């Protein structure tokens, strides 16, 4: 039932793993202080920033989850990498990135702390740490259980810990430099393997036109599979949720307020490299759905043929027969097992190893990126800030470096221990989106108002963030509140509006921030005030 790896596959995977490990450890020699560890010494060129954004964003969960969603709902699942990335990445490149870059901050919560107060910073940082922990757990367990176990039959415990040890050690040692250097290699491996799977899938189903007409002839649950924007009555991804919830709120919040993404641009060598890296990332991301989503469509045509030719190709308990206009078609029960099943049935020796290396690349780059960002947030916004609030001295460079590395080790061990608990979760991509949606709307609201509206103050931001997250939580807990099965798109949209209104109302009812405090922290002064710009430039150079 499981794939027996050929020696050449094992060789490819081992070369990849050892290569990443060596490259990651090699960068250790460039790490002397916290600035080197957390921001790669502000030396990253645009291509490294762009590559790193793409591979940190795209994980094995995308290969598995997006393909699974496409199998069930069609190309509309690819919206998350199209409208869910590009306009938002342009806004990030030309509004948020230059702004953060010029103000010389390490993290988004640090900016919120300077703009509002320590309470907003600590709250936002704590939320991000929780979300990053959940994301790490999901990434590890998805790859170990849904992917490697389905394909190879390996014990998921082994896979989780091996991934954790390899990735954890090089991130622990080399910080952002190691992450970005390995990301460049991982991007190439990921693209080559993903495009190989796509090419072979299309070959097996007789090409694009043949596949499209075969799926369209099925009708019934597959009638909308080639519509990118589904009707508002559709239960999965109705267009109003996609355009407003994803395109306007979730995507902008993710690309501008997610430390894992913005972190790379803060390490760029110039403001131009930071912006160009974001645009390059957006361009490369436009091809991601082609690799991760289209194999899900091919599976709809390929798997019935595979089962017809060999009834033992897929165990009977893994699928059910569904009535369509073209007759009864076998459909897998768990959509997240579509890609692993395709890989097991379709790929020849050599390509299996390459694909496995590609998936491990996707996983490891996301894990290392998340670890690096989480440790930066923990040290900058929770530990160091907490010490200062309690009257202790701020951490020096060396001590900050120790704490950054210590937290990296703690986080990866905790994630590995907790990973098996997520065995209960089905539809993992939507699960992660749901977790993100619970605070992305309110975070974007206070971030946007903090940048664009000088009148926004600490009380407004605190109320907007706390009440906004509570509002999200209440919407999430009420069943059948929205027409979608997974209502995270609507939760993000309405929570953003709610937090915006609360922040504005509370800010207007309370005293404004002193002008000296917000100078250089709001858009108008950062972009148009030469004095503020000089002060910021001096701070960055210092």
């Amino acid at each position, binding site marked *: 039932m499981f794939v027996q790896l050929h020696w050449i596959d094992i060789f490819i995977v081992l070369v990849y793993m050892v290569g990443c490990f060596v490259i990651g450890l090699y960068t250790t020699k460039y790490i002397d202080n916290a600035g080197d560890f957390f921001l790669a010494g502000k030396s990253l060129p645009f291509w490294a920033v762009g590559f790193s954004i793409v591979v940190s964003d795209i994980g094995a969960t995308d290969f598995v989850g997006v393909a699974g969603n496409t199998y069930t709902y069609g190309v509309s699942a690819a919206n998350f990498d199209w409208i869910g990335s590009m306009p938002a990445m342009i806004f990030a490149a030309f509004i948020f990135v*230059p702004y953060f870059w010029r103000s010389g901050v390490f993290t988004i919560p640090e900016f919120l702390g300077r703009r509002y107060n320590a309470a907003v910073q600590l709250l936002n940082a704590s939320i991000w740490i929780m979300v990053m922990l959940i994301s790490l757990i999901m990434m590890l367990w998805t790859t170990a259980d849904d992917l490697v176990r389905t394909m190879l039959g390996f014990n998921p*415990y082994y896979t989780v810990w091996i991934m954790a040890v390899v990735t954890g050690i090089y991130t622990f040692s080399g910080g952002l430099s190691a992450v970005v250097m390995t990301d460049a290699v991982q991007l190439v491996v990921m693209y080559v393997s993903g495009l190989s799977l796509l090419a072979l899938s299309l070959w097996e189903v007789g090409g694009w036109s043949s596949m499209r007409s075969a799926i369209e002839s099925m009708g019934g649950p597959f009638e909308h599979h080639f519509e990118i924007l589904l009707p508002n009555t559709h239960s999965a991804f109705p267009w109003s949720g996609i355009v407003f919830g994803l395109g306007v709120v979730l995507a902008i919040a993710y690309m501008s307020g997610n430390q894992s993404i913005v972190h790379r641009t803060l390490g760029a060598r110039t403001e131009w490299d930071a912006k160009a890296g974001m645009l390059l990332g957006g361009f490369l991301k436009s091809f991601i759905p082609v690799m991760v989503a289209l194999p899900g469509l091919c599976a709809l045509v390929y798997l019935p043929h595979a089962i017809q030719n060999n009834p033992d190709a897929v165990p009977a308990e893994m699928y059910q027969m569904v009535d369509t206009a073209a007759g009864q078609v076998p459909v897998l029960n768990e959509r997240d097992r579509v890609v692993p099943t395709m890989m097991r049935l379709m790929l020849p020796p050599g390509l299996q190893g390459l694909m496995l290396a590609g998936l491990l690349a996707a996983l490891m780059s996301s894990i290392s990126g998340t670890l690096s960002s989480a440790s930066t947030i923990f040290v900058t916004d929770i530990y160091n800030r907490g010490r200062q609030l309690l009257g202790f001295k701020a951490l020096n460079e060396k001590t900050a470096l120790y704490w950054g590395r210590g937290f990296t080790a703690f986080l990866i061990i905790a994630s590995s221990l907790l990973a098996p608990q997520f065995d209960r979760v089905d539809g993992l991509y939507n699960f992660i989106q749901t977790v993100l949606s619970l605070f992305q709307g309110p975070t974007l609201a206070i971030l946007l108002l903090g940048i664009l509206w000088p009148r926004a103050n600490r009380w407004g931001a605190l109320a907007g963030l706390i009440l906004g997250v509570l509002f999200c939580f209440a919407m999430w807990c009420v069943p059948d509140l929205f027409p979608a099965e997974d209502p995270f798109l609507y939760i993000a949209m309405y929570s953003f509006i709610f937090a915006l209104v609360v922040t504005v109302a509370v800010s207007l009812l309370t005293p404004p921030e002193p002008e000296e405090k917000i100078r250089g922290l709001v858009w108008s002064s950062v972009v148009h005030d030469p004095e503020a710009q000089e002060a910021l430039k001096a701070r960055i150079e210092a």
Partner: protein
Amino acid sequence: MKRYQTWRMIAAPVLLAGVLAQAQENPAGRYAHEQVGGVLGFLLRVSDVILDGWLAFLDWFGSLWAPLLHPVFSPLNRLLSGVYQPWAMIITLAYFIGTMLWVGLVLRPSYVNNGRRQAAWYTDLRLWTVISMLPHLFVYVYFR
């Protein structure tokens, strides 16, 4: 730096021992808490209880808010479901094109390209914006 080399040398065998211990306790490769003994089994069962408690809390919290939120969102849902479907594509394409126009025509070129080392046409980020947006525009037109 030597301090970290020592850390790594200690951490790696400890973690690998953890892998072996966990995996051997669960040889089927399928997670089943009741099969795992010792301290690890105890911790897993405690985490089960916490998770079940959390799920029960979510049910209770949802029932508390349902009477308040349903009357607010039901009319909004009806309003959105009645919107003419082609508006979806019009709004989406306008969003993409509007973003490109904003960068190309509204933002000052000196701001867009601030920090570039070489002033050449191929380093102009207005051009990069258009090129990076085109594949996205294409797929929305193709799958309309």
